[in-house]
């Protein structure tokens, strides 16, 4: 178990404040040079779910579910039916006949669960008499069932028939679920992780309550067959053994509180160390969004691999590979670099020269030099950022070379694409059309 207090030796509070990164306009490694703005939602877009290679669904507080084509940016369907905000959404593929079908399960605050057919835009199934609204959904492909978690845990088959459910848990309800081996799942409820074993078609039973977290668990992920991880509001990161549910590693991320307690608002911001989101990257790193920072934990070494205390101006909401999106409306792309680079002044972006609206408050100073306290510590360097949204970026979804979709509180979705690749694709399309029209 490693307790680690960051930046204890970095006393320069002023530098801390300006450590907010500003990469400047020259970003040679940033390949996203084309964007497509998708309009359609009327409120915060919170969820993005990939349906297949080409399509994805977006949903948010307006209760609308929209299905989009990532290549053209066309809205294929508007799935209307929910009267209140969407609280969870997942894609669901099942075999009917001999064809694999893609479907979409959505849960809303209006206490309904719906199954949609993204090919026709129809609502195939709907359940409206739920006790409480569902906060999370988990599909167990292996068993061809799916689970909904709210105040209670329900197991459904693919025909939307309730198989079994737990008794009423608590007001907090289940906020996250992961699948574990041997028909177990882990469900995060407030400060505890419940390990209900799920016995086919009969009952769900809570096997054990793991109450090692001292605050609300925000994220729960499965690392591999043997491990899963949970992160809490106060920055506790615990890695569990999936089989015997013992703690494999405990990490308490305490972003340093400013020593000189300079400005109170800065202090407030830095105290924020809630683990909002975690993701597995390269199958051995956990990338965690901690407050407005990023934290990369090496699972194999059970030690921190890299961190960036202030990766964004405000809370990081979602991470993916080494990307992060934040309430400040930006998406940042990071790179693990082996050596702690010598202090290199970041580009000032020429705002200083442009006096009319220079952002003087965000003058970049040299980034804090990090002293490797842990062997193998690498630095997390900013490779590029995507600026487009005017409010918090809620989530993103990668279609690999086809692009990156971001959803935001500003009601917009943006597809970011590799401009060079798109240009080449367009050229191909042009020659194809020339050929079709026999104008070649």
């Amino acid at each position, binding site marked *: 178990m490693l307790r680690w207090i960051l930046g204890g030796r970095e006393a320069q509070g002023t530098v801390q404040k300006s450590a907010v990164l500003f990469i400047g306009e020259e970003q040679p490694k940033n390949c996203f040079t084309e964007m497509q703005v998708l309009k359609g939602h009327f409120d915060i877009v919170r969820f993005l779910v990939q349906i297949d290679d080409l399509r994805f669904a977006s949903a948010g507080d307006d209760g609308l579910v929209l299905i989009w084509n990532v290549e053209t940016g066309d809205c294929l369907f508007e799935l209307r039916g929910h009267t209140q905000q969407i609280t969870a959404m997942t894609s669901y593929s099942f075999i009917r006949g001999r064809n694999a079908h893609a479907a979409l399960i959505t849960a809303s605050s209006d206490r309904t669960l719906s199954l949609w057919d993204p090919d026709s835009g129809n609502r195939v199934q709907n359940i409206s008499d739920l006790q409480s609204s569902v906060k999370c959904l988990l599909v167990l492909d292996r068993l061809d069932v799916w689970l909904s978690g709210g105040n209670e845990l329900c197991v459904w088959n693919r025909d939307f028939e309730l198989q079994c459910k737990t008794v009423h848990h608590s007001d907090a309800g289940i906020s996250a679920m992961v699948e574990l081996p041997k028909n177990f799942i882990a469900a995060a409820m407030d400060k505890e992780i419940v390990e209900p074993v799920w016995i086919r078609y009969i009952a769900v039973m809570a096997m054990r309550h793991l109450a090692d977290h001292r605050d609300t668990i925000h994220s729960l992920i499965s690392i591999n067959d043997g491990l899963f991880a949970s992160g809490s509001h106060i920055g506790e990161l615990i890695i569990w053994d999936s089989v015997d549910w013992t703690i494999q590693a405990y990490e308490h991320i305490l972003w340093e509180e400013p020593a000189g307690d300079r400005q109170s608002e800065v202090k407030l911001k830095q105290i924020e160390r809630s683990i909002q989101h975690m993701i597995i990257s390269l199958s051995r790193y956990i990338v965690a969004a901690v407050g407005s920072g990023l934290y990369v934990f090496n699972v194999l070494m059970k030690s921190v691999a890299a961190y960036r205390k202030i990766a964004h101006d405000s809370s990081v909401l979602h991470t993916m590979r080494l990307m992060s999106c934040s309430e400040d409306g930006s998406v940042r792309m990071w790179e693990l670099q082996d050596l702690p680079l010598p202090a290199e002044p970041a580009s000032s972006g*020429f705002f200083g020269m442009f006096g009319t609206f220079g952002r003087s408050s965000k003058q970049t100073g040299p980034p804090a030099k990090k002293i490797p306290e842990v062997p193998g510590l690498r630095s997390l360097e900013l490779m590029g950022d995507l600026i487009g949204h005017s409010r918090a970026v809620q989530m993103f979804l990668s279609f690999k070379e086809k692009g990156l979709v971001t959803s935001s509180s500003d009601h917009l979705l943006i597809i970011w694409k590799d401009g060079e690749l798109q240009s080449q694709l367009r050229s191909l399309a*042009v020659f194809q059309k*020339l050929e079709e029209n026999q104008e*070649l």
Partner: protein
Amino acid sequence: LSTYFSVINFKKDLLDQTGCIRTHIFCCKQSSLLSQCARIWLLCCVFSLSKDFILISEFSEQVGPQPLLTIPNDPKVCGTFDLNYFSLRIMSVDYQASFVGHPPGSNYPKLNFVEDSKVVLGDSKEGAFAYVHHLTLYDLEARGFVRPFCMAYISADEKKIMHQFQELSSEFSKASEFLKSGNRKAFANELEKKLKDLEYTRSVLHKETELQKKNNGCYSTQAIEKANELANVEKSIYEHKDLLRQITSYPSRKKKDVDFVQRETEKLADTSVLDDTLNSNHSDIADKTVETESDSRKSSYTPQLIKAKSAKCFDKRLKTMEELCDANFFHQTLEQLNITEKSFRGDLCFIYTSQIDGALLGKQRVTSFLFEAEREWEKEGTSKNFNIFSHNPTVPILNLSGELLSLESYTTCIDIDHIKPGVESMEGPPESSLSDITQETSEAADTETKGSFSSDKSIEAFGGVSPSSLQANYFDGLERKSKVSIASPSESASSYVAVPQKMTDGNLVPMDAACCIGQDGFIFEEPLPELAQECCGDTVVNQEPLSLLQGDPALQVDYILEESALAESPNMGLTFSELNTGVLSEEVAKINIEYVSDSTSFMSASTSSDRAVSPFTYGSALTLKQKKKAGHSALRFIRQYPFAQQAIFCLLSGRTLVILGVDEGTVRKLVNALFFFVPNLGKYGETVQPWLSSPFQLTDLQRWKLIGLQRAASPAGSSILHSLNRYSRYISILDCDSKTLRCPPYKGTLISHLADHRTQIKRGSTYFLHVQGMLTQLTAKAFLYTFCHHIHLPMDINDQGSVTSRRTNFLLQLGYTVEESKIVQYLSELIKQHYIQGSSMGGNQSFCFNYTTSYLYKI
């Protein structure tokens, strides 16, 4: 007056050249009279005929020749011009084709589907020359069922009529074809009604005959009278049925001549004719109305029917032209004539220029949206020309040895025939003109007609190689591309290579042999500077530009190559006049004044031009005039701001330029100075927002490429600044108040040619044309870049990298710097998107940008 003298000179030339033919066409007396009176006419025409117009007249069997209507339909148009007299003149040239009736050896009247005749006529009294297009319409009540009509294009400029004969002929033929189709439909309806009347009459007579027979016996006078009457009716019914059969079986051969637009409407019309006429099962409501109508007519009509055919009654009212024609077709006819009238406004010089211009633009359909003004009424005409390179489908596969393939595919674009237009015209005169030459028309030369010729054959006889005939053939050739033979690759390749060498004199810039389009790109660089200078310099051009393929052989070759390589026209010497013909005539008069005011405002720059009127008014299309005026503002801008080149670079490379300022006037003036640099400006300037006082959104950057933005101290102002700050990587900011520009750097020479602050150009419109020329050249390169296969097609699937490097190298080889490459790439992306999605740039557009550092430029 000099024009008039040149007209006289031309006429003399014509007379000299065609001395022998002249005698066949008009008598010597007439011609000598003409030359004597020429001067007087010309003076006359100043007064009586200020403007060209179209006159439609009829030779009425009751009152003789009479004018029906003029286009434009405005009494001021003809002024003191004597329409009645002129109608008499044009209608007196009866073309004898209207012979209808009982042909010898036939018992029944026969409808002749005669060709229209086309003649040119000069008149001494009015000092007018006219292209006269005769046609006949069918009317059941008229003598011989025909009514002769004629449409005439009347102008004081003889040369114009002569040289534009072919074009006039084709335009009027279209109108005539509309009119005749409508008339056939109406005639068939009329016949049908008449048949019903006759059948009714027959039944009545039959009853009466029976009655007479019963009462008076079979051989009573009354009975015989009735029987005769009945027989007459029977005969009449037979005749009318025959007529109906004739009109409905109108030779389909003729329909093929008609323009494609019309073909469809005609098809519709024909089917409806058939429906109306051949359907004996009348069950529709429409038919009921017809029947009631005929019922009402029958009572008074029945006994007179048979007489009506034989006896000419001069007191009956003849149908008007509108009544003779189906309403829908009649309106189409008028529309066509209106278009014709508009398209022939202006003098010959202007028409030539705009025809050349239009023809070139027609071939640039893929790229013309970038910097050219949209032309409404020319659209359909030019659209067919574009397909010229479409006859040999080539699969876009890239061989590693790309040479052969590309050569082959590009030679399909070259019509061997067009390289030697003369050959083309000899071998295959257009079908339409062949059919025009009817025996009647060539003999129709009236003794009073001056210079009448009715087919292009006779034009050729006139002038040897007459420009208009060549031109006509040329255009016909474009349209009849199916007829154009596809040359064998080797053949065309050799001729292709031969041509550029002839004209470049070894100026060919060495270039990757694999790219033959690329060669063209370089070839054209050579002749450009002189031409550009020609139009920039202050030399006055006294000669009108030559017709498309007339004169300068180099120019011809140039032009042909243009078309073959699908490239734009760098020879802006020809096309710089990008005038909007539609608004010409009125404008011509103003031009001089405009120029004067333009140059004076240049002299006293500070005073007059401050009142720069913004061209951006809601919902109105940007006109060329506005763009030319903007040229003046642009000139001032590049003189005043040393960073003008950077600003223009931003616009051309698709980076949104925000002009920020407190004063709306100043901001709008700057927007006005820069807007014509914006690629794909849109018909209404949709990509420009001249004045914005609210914060802009991300989507606005996608939509607008030039934004005038208010700087205000209010909270709104601070949020504006916030958005500027947030999206600073996507925009360049020109601050009017502190006179600074924040934008990426530009290195290169392209824009310094485009916007040289030491330029000698003084007039805004000249500068606009200069810019237009440069931009066209740039567009040509973008086109080249877009449509060169082998730089875009991957060798295999995982070949992204090599495509990228091939692209970059290609642009470097074209001589562009990194920044200039961005311009070409941006234009190329626009071309691609435009091509893929069609002209409607709606849908969800992508927004491209670069991550480059901006710098701050100060005065």
